[in-house]
Structure formats: structure tokens, C-alpha cells
């Protein structure tokens, strides 16, 4: 559990809950049942970034559920406390706080577990009281909704994720849509079945929404103990390695200053930009335009490109 007050995850004898009150593990009769990976991805991924989906979050929740079933609340609490989640996204947190996601989440008052839980907002019975031992943990979006948009192959799914993330981010940054709503909409579009492929695409979708960072922040994140990782992120060389092999020393090309981990789809966008003939550069690709230029010139060019693509502040 992180040290932010209130914490992102809370474990009680009633289950494990994500701020601001969504059940990740909850009692169903004698058992404790974990929410679907998709729902966990949606809730915690949107709060803390896609990288949490690749840590031990789901397995820890399963372990906590087993402890809770045995009445070992302290052990369950300790398991959850052992998770080191990234800080919550201030933007998403603001959206939740001002109620941009319809009604308050069902367990908003989890610190008083005696209160009767409600069905999540967005469901047919949204906001209504429900039995404590309901039949299942209900996802925020309707899993029975026809998923006609879901492409059948990973390649198509990945292209769909790349296109949709670009379109929806444009709407978000233009002020036409809240980020949390865009993420929830995409989660609904890719369908209720959680596969590794869908999880990959979902994580890539979410990472595109990362706000731009300063160069120092990007480098620090890249070299932190828990850097974001593939498949949601990729390592980006600010000065490209391939065309400069043997011309610029490896000590520069592989230096900490020249490598940053950035969102996957944005990395694809930038790489493709370098490979595409461009009227601005007399019909050359930017890669060819840079050929033979100094490390410093190429570095400044690389920073400019990252800035224009919304990776760098």
C-alpha cells in the first residue's frame, strides 16, 4: 500500500477495496471473490497507470481473498500492504472526487463497513442497495453488451487500440471527454473476456494517456527501481542507435541521458515518423535528414519530436 492518505487500497474483514470505494475482493456468502482482471485493470489501472497490471496485484488479491476466507484478516492486510502501487493520477482522482463518473462508487464509505453496499453506478440498478452476498462482483460496464467492435486477432486488436487511443485522447485533450470516461469506454469496447492480448492492448491504450513529463522526470522514471515496462511501454533512444552505429560512441547512444521509457503507441508513432518521407525535409525521412549530423543536433531534434508528440513537456 502506498503512503498517500487516503490509501489506494484498503483491506478490511469485508474485503479489499480500491479508492474511492470499489470492491476488488468481497465476501459472497462464505467465500471471498476477486473482481475480474478486466475490472481490476480498469479501476486500478486508470488510477495508478497501466504498469500496475504487470505487477503482483492480481495474485496478491487472490492471496488476500484466501486469508480472508480463513479469517486471517491481519495476514490479508499485510499482503495488500506489501504492494507498492505508483501514486494515483491526479487527473483521474479529480474526476472521481468531483463525481465525473456518475454516482459515488458503491463502497465510498468503506471505512464504515457496516453500511449496506450498493450496485455500481452505470448498472440497471445503479445506486440501489444490493444484498451483501450478491451473486457476483459486477463490473462497471455491462459485460452482456454486444461486443461487435472487438477485432478477432491480436494484430487487429492492437491496431484498434492504437487508433482508438489516438482518437479518444484527442477528444480528451480537446476537452470533449473525461479521461476516465474514455478509458472506461475503451474497456467496454474490447469486451468482457480478459485475455493476455486484450490486457496488452488495454495497457497500451491507458499508457497513451500519460501526461507529458519533463526530461528529468522521464529519465528518473526510466532509471527507477520500478520503471514502467513492456508491453505498455518501450525504451526509446532520443538519438537513434541504428543509423548512428559506428559513428557516434556507444557511451553516448547507450547513456542514461539518451534512453527513456515512453508509452508504447507513442513510441510507435515517433518511430514511424522517423521512417516516413516528409515534405518538410525535402522528401527525405527524418532519419535520412539527420544522417551525419552531430549527436547534439540529433539530440535536440529528438527532444523536439518528443515534445510535439506529447511525451515531453
Amino acid at each position, binding site marked *: 500500500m502506498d503512503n498517500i492518505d487516503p490509501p489506494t487500497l484498503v483491506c478490511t474483514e469485508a474485503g479489499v477495496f480500491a479508492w474511492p470505494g470499489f470492491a476488488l475482493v468481497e465476501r459472497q456468502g462464505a467465500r471471498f471473490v476477486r473482481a475480474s482482471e478486466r475490472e481490476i485493470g480498469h479501476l486500478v489501472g486508470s488510477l495508478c497507470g497501466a504498469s500496475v497490471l504487470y505487477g503482483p496485484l492480481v495474485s496478491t488479491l487472490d492471496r488476500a481473498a484466501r486469508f480472508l476466507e480463513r479469517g486471517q484478516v491481519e495476514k490479508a492486510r499485510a499482503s495488500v500492504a506489501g504492494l507498492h502501487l505508483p501514486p494515483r493520477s491526479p487527473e483521474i482522482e479529480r474526476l472521481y472526487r468531483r463525481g465525473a463518473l456518475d454516482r459515488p462508487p458503491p463502497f465510498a464509505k468503506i471505512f464504515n463497513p457496516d453500511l449496506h453496499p450498493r450496485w455500481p453506478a452505470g448498472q440497471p440498478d445503479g445506486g440501489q442497495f444490493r444484498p451483501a452476498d450478491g451473486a457476483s462482483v459486477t463490473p462497471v460496464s455491462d459485460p452482456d453488451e454486444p461486443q461487435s467492435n472487438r477485432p478477432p486477432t491480436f494484430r487487429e486488436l492492437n491496431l484498434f487500440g*492504437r487508433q482508438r487511443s489516438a482518437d479518444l485522447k484527442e477528444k480528451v485533450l480537446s476537452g470533449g471527454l473525461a479521461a476516465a470516461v474514455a478509458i472506461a469506454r475503451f474497456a467496454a469496447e474490447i469486451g468482457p473476456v480478459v485475455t493476455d492480448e486484450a490486457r496488452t492492448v488495454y495497457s497500451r491504450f491507458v499508457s497513451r494517456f500519460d501526461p507529458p513529463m519533463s526530461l528529468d522526470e522521464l529519465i528518473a522514471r526510466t532509471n527507477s527501481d520500478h520503471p514502467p515496462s513492456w508491453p505498455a511501454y518501450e525504451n526509446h533512444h532520443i538519438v537513434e542507435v541504428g543509423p548512428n552505429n559506428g559513428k557516434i560512441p556507444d557511451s553516448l547512444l547507450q547513456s542514461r541521458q539518451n534512453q527513456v521509457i515512453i508509452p508504447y503507441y507513442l513510441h510507435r508513432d515517433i*518511430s514511424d515518423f522517423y521512417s516516413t*518521407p516528409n515534405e518538410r525535409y525535402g522528401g527525405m525521412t527524418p532519419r535520412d535528414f539527420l544522417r551525419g549530423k552531430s549527436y547534439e543536433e540529433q539530440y535536440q531534434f529528438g527532444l523536439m519530436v518528443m515534445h510535439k508528440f506529447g511525451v515531453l513537456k
Partner: protein
Amino acid sequence: MKAGLQHLQDADLVERFRQLALDKSRYLIESNTQPLRRNFDDMKAIEQDLRRRGPESRKALSVLLDDTDMRVRYEAAIRLLAVVPDKAFATVQAIAKRHLMPVSAEAAIFLDGLESGEYKPE
């Protein structure tokens, strides 16, 4: 594509140009960079053929400045800067202000080139 262009009407060339811009979007979303050289050369060939036909034909691409597709508007605008400068510039500027990647970033980089004088429309 170059061969045979001269037999086409201006409107046909414009439609071909539009299709090439849409193809470019598709290649980019697929990271299929192999056909992009040919795609660029084909757009260039259409631009040059219209230029060869005279000022009125050269303006034919300007109908694409109102296209619903942002990539189509952008590809037309950067080739019309010397022909309908105000509208073409405003189109590039508007796309750069949006956040649709990658075309908005390309437009922003293109604008920098124009403003610094490194790129001169002809």
C-alpha cells in the same frame, strides 16, 4: 503512377490524391512503412502534374482543405501553401493545435519549419 496521369481530369487527380492520403493513414497505423516512399512519390507526382497544368489546376487540391479526414486536409494543405496561402496555413495551424497523433505532431513540426524559414513553399 506517374505514367498516365496526364490523361486524367483534375478532379480525378484530386480523388487519387485523397485516396493516397487515406492510404498513408492506414500504413502509419499499421507501422507499415515500406509503401510510404511510393506513397509520397505518388502524391508528389500528382502535385507536379497539377502544377504543370497551370495555376487553376494547381488550386484543384484546395477542395480537400474541407475534407472530413484530418490527414487528407493536412497533406493537401502543405502542398497548397504557395497557392492558397492563407487557407492552407490556417489548415496546418488548426491541425497542429489538435492532438490527433501522429498528424497533429507532423503539422506542428511542419509549422516550425515554415516559421523558421527552413521550409519555403514553392
